[in-house]
């Protein structure tokens, strides 16, 4: 049975549609991440699940029960807020046990629950402090502890890490993942950080303008995006979108990238990836999507079978990140980013021969931005 099912949910503020017919279903123990740019409706959807805002139409089921019109308290959920929302006048201990107290759990059990989560999150030494005396990371832990104490059916995390500094954010991310693996809880997690989405999720819902564009595993969303928005949103540095023309070449196709003043770059489309629709795109502009890691130096072999295609371009900027080097290369009308190994000795202005892994390339319609192949 689905732990959480969202069925045709719409939400309107006046004439503005914030959620347009959203449907999602996740199983017990699954980690769902709602990701998208600000204003895409992900927080509204979260509030609708929590019962903090009523939906205009549609239904929400938790553990098979219709909770659409229940109060937040009656939904058996817990939420971790972006600002943590710790009760400022209460100690950490009181913060954690407040929800249990409101649910009339006997004092002894409350104490037990507090000890359990404090132990789990290593905040036992902070129990008597007030929130104002805690650092950002400690507040974050207390906020999670407050959610964990009640052992609800579904946990909601609303951008819980966005107020932490970069290093702490990575640490807490790992910790949330560990907690999830250990406790097997059902989690809905809102973020605008695609790295958080990729690393944590069992299932990612990419949202934009109140719609879910794609719902799938991190691997599906990353390697098999449905359109240019999803492709561009997931991954950092983001996918290169290269304007090209699809031409016939023998049995198959070739992509011609116009480079003024030089010979056009021709990239053959792998025949095993031909799809029926491509024929209609012949001689029309098309968008070729290649991630930075789909490029490599000439002497790096992709695999036993795949040779890739060689292509030459002039390097304009070299950005070493330590683990690898990001190269910026003008190609046709745009500048592309390629990720090469850290040993690559190249200076700006030099020409470089790159191997392109066309087997992993994707094609988009230039007008509708939808995926073609």
């Amino acid at each position, binding site marked *: 049975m689905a732990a959480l099912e969202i069925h045709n949910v719409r939400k309107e503020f006046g004439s503005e549609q914030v959620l347009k017919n959203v449907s999602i279903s996740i199983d017990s123990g699954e980690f769902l991440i709602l990701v998208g740019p600000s204003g895409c409706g992900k927080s509204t959807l979260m509030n609708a699940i*929590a019962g*903090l805002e009523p939906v205009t139409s549609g239904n929400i089921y938790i553990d098979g029960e219709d909770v659409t019109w229940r*109060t*937040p*308290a009656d939904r058996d*959920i*817990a*939420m971790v*807020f*972006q*600002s*943590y*929302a*710790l*009760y*400022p*006048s*209460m100690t950490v201990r009181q913060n954690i046990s*407040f*929800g249990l107290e*409101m*649910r009339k759990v006997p004092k002894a059990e409350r104490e037990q629950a507090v000890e359990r989560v404090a132990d789990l999150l290593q905040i036992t030494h902070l129990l008597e402090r007030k*929130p*104002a005396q805690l650092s950002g990371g400690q507040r974050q832990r207390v906020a999670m502890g*407050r959610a964990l104490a*009640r052992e609800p059916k579904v946990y909601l995390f609303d951008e819980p890490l966005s107020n932490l500094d970069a290093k702490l954010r990575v640490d807490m991310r790992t910790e949330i993942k560990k907690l999830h693996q250990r406790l097997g809880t059902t989690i809905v997690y809102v973020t605008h950080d695609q790295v958080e989405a990729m690393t944590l999720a069992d299932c990612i819902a990419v949202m934009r303008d109140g719609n879910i564009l794609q719902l799938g595993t991190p691997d599906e969303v990353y390697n098999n995006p449905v359109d240019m928005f999803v492709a561009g949103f997931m991954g950092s540095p983001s996918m290169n979108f290269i304007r090209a023309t699809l031409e016939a070449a023998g049995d198959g196709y070739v992509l011609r990238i116009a480079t003024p003043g030089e010979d056009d770059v021709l990239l053959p489309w792998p025949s095993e990836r031909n799809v029926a629709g491509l024929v209609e795109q012949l001689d029309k502009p098309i968008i070729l999507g290649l991630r930075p890691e789909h490029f490599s130096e000439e002497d790096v072999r992709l695999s036993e079978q795949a040779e890739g295609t060689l292509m030459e371009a002039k390097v304009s900027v070299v950005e070493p990140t330590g683990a690898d080097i990001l190269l910026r290369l003008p190609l046709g009308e745009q500048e592309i980013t390629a990720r090469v190994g850290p040993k690559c000795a190249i200076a700006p202005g030099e020409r470089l021969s790159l191997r392109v892994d066309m087997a992993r390339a994707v094609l988009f319609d230039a007008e509708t931005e939808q995926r073609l192949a």
Partner: protein
Amino acid sequence: MANVIRRQTPAARLGRGLLYGVLILAALFYILPLVVMLMTSVKPLSEISAGTLLSLPQNPTLEPWAKAWGEACTGMRCDGIGGYFWNSFAIVIPAVLISTTIGALNGYALTKWRFKGSELVFALMLFGCFIPFQVVLLPMAQTLGWLGISSSRAGLILVHVVFGIAFTTLFFRNFYVGIPNELVSAAKLDGAGFFRIFWRILLPVSAPIIVVSVIWQFTQIWNDFLFGVAFSAHNTQPVTVALNNLVNTSTGVREYNVDMAAAMIAALPTLVVYVLAGKYFVRGLTAGSVKG
């Protein structure tokens, strides 16, 4: 306080000196009426007629204070303003408590439980801050008559509560706007209801604005004269009205020392409130959001 970094040149020191000189003069000028009142209130009558306003009392006496408290004539009765002093307390304390409580609940509801038209309700309440007292005298008299509480303490309390709510609501609303809504959302998810959230989450952090509201209401109601004179009977008069009667009741010679002592007595509670809670007043008015 951050110190201003500045080189101590002679010119700068002179400027500083001048600045302080002017400020000290202004402060002295400001406190002068109080000093004169205080001095006059402890002089015997003979000294007042012989000396000047600023001459120091030669034989200080508390007799004028005793007379003002217990014997001076206010109109037809001659039992001082002591009784009216307690009258004022009997009116002010319930009025302050009730108006502050209602203001807090209003502010809470208007910010954390928004409803359709809550902004309009707030705008109308704000408008209430600008209604002149004189405008409502007649309708209020009529209303108190209908309710059967005209000329009673209860009537005066009601009037002050009704007028005070506009201000207290404004105070609490502006304070609660700065408290993150997520706190209330979290408490809702934890299972707390309207009053529980107010009592357990918001009220414990409201001390600064409660102080502001109490001081403001206390001074306003204590110092009120118009409502006091319009809606009270001789036995329910607040001290301000009694003071006026005392000063205006002439029995031959004018007893300035008694008048001054009575005025000091009437002003004392507000002074005490300011001295005790003044710093919280400023702190509360400038208090922003509470970090959770």
